[in-house]
């Protein structure tokens, strides 16, 4: 406590003014003749007790008012120890690490994340008036939780919201600092500071954080000291699902465990759960810091829920990485239906069978032209018609419907194909009008056609090679492609050889030569195989979820399968999110690790599992490594300790002036009450 201007206390002598004024006025009271003085005396007797109390209160209020005013003018202050900072106005960016490792169990007490949240609240309260503050979450990907504001108290609700979500993400402190620099860039305040609240784990690499000159960067650690022993932690690092070759409908889950802070010597129990039921259990024995175990479970059918999870039994330092989602489904494959002439479909099937596994599997079914009308097209992604006559009205309608709902259709020329009939049957979806086939003597070679952007439907075909020597003896004449179609390949004379366009939600490719050797030697050239594969992929829909594991918080987009009217995503906690429109479902709520179930509704509104769209969200394996990173000290950096010990003066004058105002109001109320009749006052 202290006073800025002690001499102002002399003003307190004025507190005697009301008493002196009262005594002085008694000697010089005005005289007034009043006939009803007897009634006045009666009134005085009646209200003497009340007026005496009011008079005393009035005197106290007036004296207190003058004393408070004098004290306020003297500038009293209170010295307080700041929780953070040096008491000067600054623009502050608080980076709160909300990565998975912040949820570690410290062996009693609050988690580092909870302590960091409390510390952030302390820092916000310690900021002097006029300061600015913003809040940035340091988990991957970094995001601005509260933009820079002159009202630091506004960060409170945002911190509450952040506290409600458990930390699951990876760490991205460097990117968070870059984001903080952008937030502070427009601040009018000269002092700009970044405060990082993190557990300081090795994977966070907090020691590499740097701030530009003129800006301070302080890191406060809430994990163990750099020289402390890392806590023991085990995690499910990887899962691989392999369908059993010898047992239909069964799959083996190869689980890899990793340990940090010392590997357990005893076997670790691991179980496989599906829909809350344990379907397999095993034990893993660590060798070094890794262990593996195989668990066998049921393989989901084409319309079954494939979600499951692998759980490590027992407790360790970090519970969030002791379970991992897994999808008990066969590897995803592009489903291609080949129909038409036997020679042509055989060549295409052989080409598709030779597609490398790393490029994604392709499941092929061959049918002849007579069988095609009986096949349910919705079970395929791409339909390739090679060397078959133009479809009849019923089949044509089914094909048009298939394409408009997102399916891919490839039409290859051939002797049985009547161009006019084809145009009559599928004209609305064809990318170009076809004329009668004609023999020709062209210079050899097929060359890439129009310049295609990455987003074009036929983009996969632009790199077609190995077709430069293709000799063509007969071809289907394709007219100029429609406005939304492109010629992906052209003959040597410039005529379109392959035209690709869109129709509804699907794509259609029209190839002017057959896939067999009847009109050209195309199947004999090395470019044939990639051409057929890319055709099948390029026009087919992307109906699989991303193959790789999704990190928490990463938005993903799920493609809607052909014919789907609704897509429902169920997260590991059971929360459902429904998407009704568009060709894809942009999913942003992927913060919860685990397996996400996806269901699709057809036109009839019936929901069926789409195991090919299910996906897994898992925290980065780095987060399971809880070893402390290097640091200046085990607690706070030196500059932070210095700031924390700073003291500042908190003026008390505003409170005193507020008291003066309240006393003035009280004095007025007392005067008013004293002037009212007792009956009214009582009322």
């Amino acid at each position, binding site marked *: 406590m202290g006073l800025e201007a002690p001499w102002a206390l002399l003003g307190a002598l004025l507190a005697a003014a009301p008493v002196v004024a009262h005594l002085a*006025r*008694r000697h010089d*009271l*005005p*005289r*007034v*003749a*009043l*006939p*009803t*003085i*007897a*009634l*006045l*005396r*009666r*009134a*005085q007797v*009646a*209200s003497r007790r009340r*007026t005496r109390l*009011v*008079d005393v209160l009035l005197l106290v209020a007036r004296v207190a008012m003058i004393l408070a005013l004098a004290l306020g003018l003297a500038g009293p202050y209170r010295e307080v120890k700041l929780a953070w900072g040096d008491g000067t106005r600054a623009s502050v960016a608080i980076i709160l690490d909300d990565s998975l490792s912040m949820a570690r169990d410290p062996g009693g007490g609050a988690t580092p994340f909870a302590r960091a949240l409390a510390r952030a609240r302390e820092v916000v309260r310690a900021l002097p008036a006029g300061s600015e503050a913003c809040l940035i979450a340091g988990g991957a990907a970094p995001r601005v939780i509260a933009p820079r504001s002159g009202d630091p108290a506004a960060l409170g609700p945002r911190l509450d919201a952040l506290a409600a979500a458990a930390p699951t993400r990876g760490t991205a402190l460097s990117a968070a600092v870059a984001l903080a620099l952008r937030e502070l860039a427009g601040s009018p305040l000269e002092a700009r500071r970044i405060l990082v609240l993190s557990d300081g784990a090795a994977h966070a690499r907090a020691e590499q954080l740097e701030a530009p000159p003129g800006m301070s960067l302080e890191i406060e650690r809430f994990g163990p000291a750099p020289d402390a022993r890392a806590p023991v932690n085990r995690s499910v690092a990887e899962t691989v699902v392999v369908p059993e070759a010898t047992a239909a409908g069964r799959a083996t889950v190869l689980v890899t465990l990793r340990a940090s802070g010392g590997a357990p010597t005893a076997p670790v129990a691991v179980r496989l759960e599906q829909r809350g039921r344990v379907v397999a259990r095993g034990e893993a024995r660590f060798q070094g810091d890794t262990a593996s175990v195989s668990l066998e479970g049921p393989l989901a059918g084409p319309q079954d829920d494939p979600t499951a999870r692998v759980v490590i039994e027992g407790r360790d330092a970090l519970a969030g990485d002791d379970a991992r989602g897994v999808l008990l489904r066969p590897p995803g494959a592009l489903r291609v239906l080949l129909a038409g002439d036997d020679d042509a479909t055989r060549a295409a099937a052989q080409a598709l069978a030779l597609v490398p596994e790393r490029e994604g599997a392709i499941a092929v079914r061959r049918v002849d032209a007579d069988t095609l009308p009986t096949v349910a097209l919705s079970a395929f992604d791409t339909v390739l018609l090679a060397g078959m006559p133009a479809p009849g009205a019923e089949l044509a309608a089914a094909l048009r419907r298939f394409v408009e709902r997102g399916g891919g259709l490839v039409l290859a020329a051939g002797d049985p194909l009547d161009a006019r009939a084809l145009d009559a049957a599928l004209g609305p979806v064809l990318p170009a009008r076809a004329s009668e086939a004609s023999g020709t003597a062209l210079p050899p070679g097929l060359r890439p056609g129009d310049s295609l952007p990455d987003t074009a439907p036929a983009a996969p075909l632009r790199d077609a090679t190995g077709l430069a020597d293709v000799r063509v003896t007969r071809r289907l004449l394709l007219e100029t492609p429609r406005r939304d179609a492109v010629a992906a390949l052209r003959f040597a004379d410039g005529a379109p050889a392959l035209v690709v366009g869109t129709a509804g939600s699907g794509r259609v490719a029209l190839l002017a030569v057959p896939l067999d050797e009847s009109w050209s030697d195309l199947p004999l050239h090395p470019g044939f195989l990639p051409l057929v594969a890319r055709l099948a992929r390029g026009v087919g829909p992307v109906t699989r979820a991303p193959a790789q594991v999704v990190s928490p918080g990463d938005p993903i987009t799920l493609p809607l399968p052909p014919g789907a009217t609704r897509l429902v995503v169920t997260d590991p906690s059971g929360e459902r999110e429904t998407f009704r429109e568009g060709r894809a479902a942009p999913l942003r709520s992927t913060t919860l690790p685990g397996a996400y179930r996806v269901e699709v509704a057809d036109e009839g509104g019936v929901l069926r599992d789409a195991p090919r769209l299910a996906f897994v969200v898992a925290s980065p394996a780095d987060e399971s490594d809880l070893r402390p990173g290097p640091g200046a000290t085990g607690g706070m950096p030196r500059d932070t300790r210095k700031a924390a010990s700073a003291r500042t003066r908190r003026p008390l004058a505003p409170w005193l002036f507020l008291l003066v105002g309240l006393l003035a109001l009280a004095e007025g109320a007392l*005067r008013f009450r*004293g*002037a*009212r*009749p*007792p*009956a*009214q*006052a009582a009322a």
Partner: protein
Amino acid sequence: MSQDAGDRSAARGALDPEVARRVSTLLLAARRAAEGLASGLHKSPHRGASVVFVEHREYRPGDDLRLLDWRAYARTDRHMIKRFEQETQLRGTLVLDRSGSMAYPTIPGAHTKARHAATLLAALGYVLVRQGDLAGAATFADVLAPPLPARGRPAQVEAIATALAEPPAEGATTDLAGALGSVAERAGRRGFVAVASDLLDLREGALAPLAQLVARGHDVVVFHVLHPDELSLPFDEPTRFEGLEGEATLETDPAALRGAYTLEIRQFLEECRARCTAAGARYVLARTDVPPERTLAELLTARGRRGWA
């Protein structure tokens, strides 16, 4: 000019011709019929020979046989006496309080309560004389001064004004009971008595003689004359208050007491009204900031509505 001389001339001037003209258009009607020697405009409770038949009653021995209704006897075979209204002349007594408290406000030249009361009474006297009735005046403080006898000649108006113009006696106390008792003894029977006073005699039974006056058949009107300052106590600063009838001084903060004082004055007014009404007299609050002709007009109009005019 001294205050006394000023009040006297003011009393003469109290009979403002404009006020008198307005008031003269209203007819004073007594609540009860007054008895008088000469016929006038006022109804008398005495039944006698007149042209206006009132009622029959049974004949009693000693009744004037000339009043027997022989036709009724022929019809009913009973002796009935005919009763008639008799027009009479009203005898009015105007009583003014001249105690010290009536001198408020004490500022020289101010319109005092005494002057306001004198104006009221003088206007009434003018009305009475103008309509052929008799009017007399009396003043009192602690005792009743020798009254001016009631007469009906035109010069009586000036005589009344002169009698009422006497300024209040400085420091004189009020003895309402004694003064009104004396008036009751001297006013005879069945007349009209108007009393103008601030009624600041807080003793029990101060207004008791009003009942005697009413019992004697008088139509009694009490003008309670008060200044607005007495009603609202419009003083804010601490003040030393002094009485006008020798009361002890009082130092107090009127702002703090205003609420309680308002209750006291309200209670005082209610008590005065209740006692006057209980005695059978009419109570009229006469504020000095209300023109006297308006006060009189309200009084006389109310009497007219009740069918007494």
